[in-house]
């Protein structure tokens, strides 16, 4: 699992959580909430989908790690790798 592959998985989840959004131009370094219409409930959905699809747990204290695609990749890639 590379960081780019990790970002792709996160984008796939966001596509289901926010189906009206155009995700083609998402900037990986910019906070997701600053470029997409995502609220706190949506982030809970992202956490739930990571749990359901990949068995990855994100404790509440770490939610800020999901702020941008880059920070998602930094935080989640080792978790994905640990699953292999």
């Amino acid at each position, binding site marked *: 699992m590379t960081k780019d592959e990790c970002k792709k998985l996160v984008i796939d989840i966001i596509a289901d*959580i*926010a*189906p*009206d959004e155009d995700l083609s131009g998402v900037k990986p370094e910019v906070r997701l909430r600053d470029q997409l*219409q995502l609220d706190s*409930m949506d982030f809970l959905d992202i956490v*739930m989908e990571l*749990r*359901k699809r990949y068995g990855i747990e994100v404790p509440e204290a770490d939610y800020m790690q999901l702020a941008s695609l880059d920070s998602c990749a930094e935080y989640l890639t080792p978790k994905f790798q640990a699953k292999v």
Partner: protein
Amino acid sequence: MELSRIVITGLGLTAPNGNNLAEFRRNLLQGVSGITMVDVRYMGRWPAGMCTFDPLRYQRKKDVRIGTRAGSISIYCAREALADSGIDLARRDLSRIGVFLGITEHGNVETENEVYNISQFKYDTKFWTHHHNPRTVANSPAGEVSLNLGTTGPAYTIGAACAAGNMGLIHAAQMLRLREVDFAFGGGVSESPQTFGIFAGFKSQNALASHADPTKASRPFDKARNGIVISEGGCIYTLERLEDAQARGAKIYGELAGYCVNSDATDYVLPNPERQAECVRRALANAGMTVDDIDIVNTHATSTPQGDIQECQAIAAVFRDRREPAAINNTKSFIGHAMGAAGALELAGNLPSFDDLVVHPTINVDDLDPQCDIPGLVLNRPRAIKRVDAILNNSFGMLGINSTLIIKRFPAHPTHP
């Protein structure tokens, strides 16, 4: 105290055989059922009534995902009603607009879905969605409408089992008369076919309809009827005080003439024809009418062996002194039992009779049950009649709740005020 006169100035609906009034009415006059076979979780295929409206006409995909089916039905109907009324929300005080929706139940669908969801994860509740509570609170369908429209007046549901559709209109009228609101959405909604529990409950009660041809499954008054066909649907009206509607030159479908809501206080599920008859009589008194003033009686009959007979007994008892029989019909024979939407939808199917003087029939009556054979039944074919000045609409529900609503022509016929 002089009560304000309340009129219907718009309506939106979705039924298993129509997504607007014109389509619905056409199919009621042409004998077109909307019942199909559907897959019911754990139970196989059963006849049911499903709607085909497009939720994305008025909602974002995300709102459809987060909300409920009942919410989507409510939003579709409310938006259609709003457009039909000609009201521009941008020019209204949004805090003076109310949303009052009758429901038979709400939350079964969403709860069953989550139980099924966590069953895929060994019933670990950490997989239970955080959307569960907002989806299942009882005010959810009305709340979704207020979110969608941006109205900030009262918006809530009225839980009244299968009497609820009428109750939405009745409560809207009461709130207008109390001047709590200046414009009201009132009606009823149902998402019940999405829950296996309602099918299983009726089946265990020996009250779930079965038939090889789903379009023949709902057959009130027929000897071979064997139970209820469960349907989804919605019908929401816009209601206003007469003077407000006239001041803006609104189209008026009809005037709320009178109503009654009462309770049997006799059984959890079995109806009580004596209390049903009392409900009809009190509605007539409330309207200042006699049985001779009623031209169409739309029955609640759900196609159960006992319930249909009891309602027919109640109607026969009330209308026995009428000189000429009123026309009596049933809309569930086309669309099944739309639960919380039933009363509101069934009234809508009859409102065009004020204009075309035609009564839609009860279909699927191949062999009339002699115990349901009361004067005035309109069976299998529409009937033209000379006068349609008042429509009486019955809706009854479990725990013994009864509602009767009477709508009269507006303006009144000059020879029949």
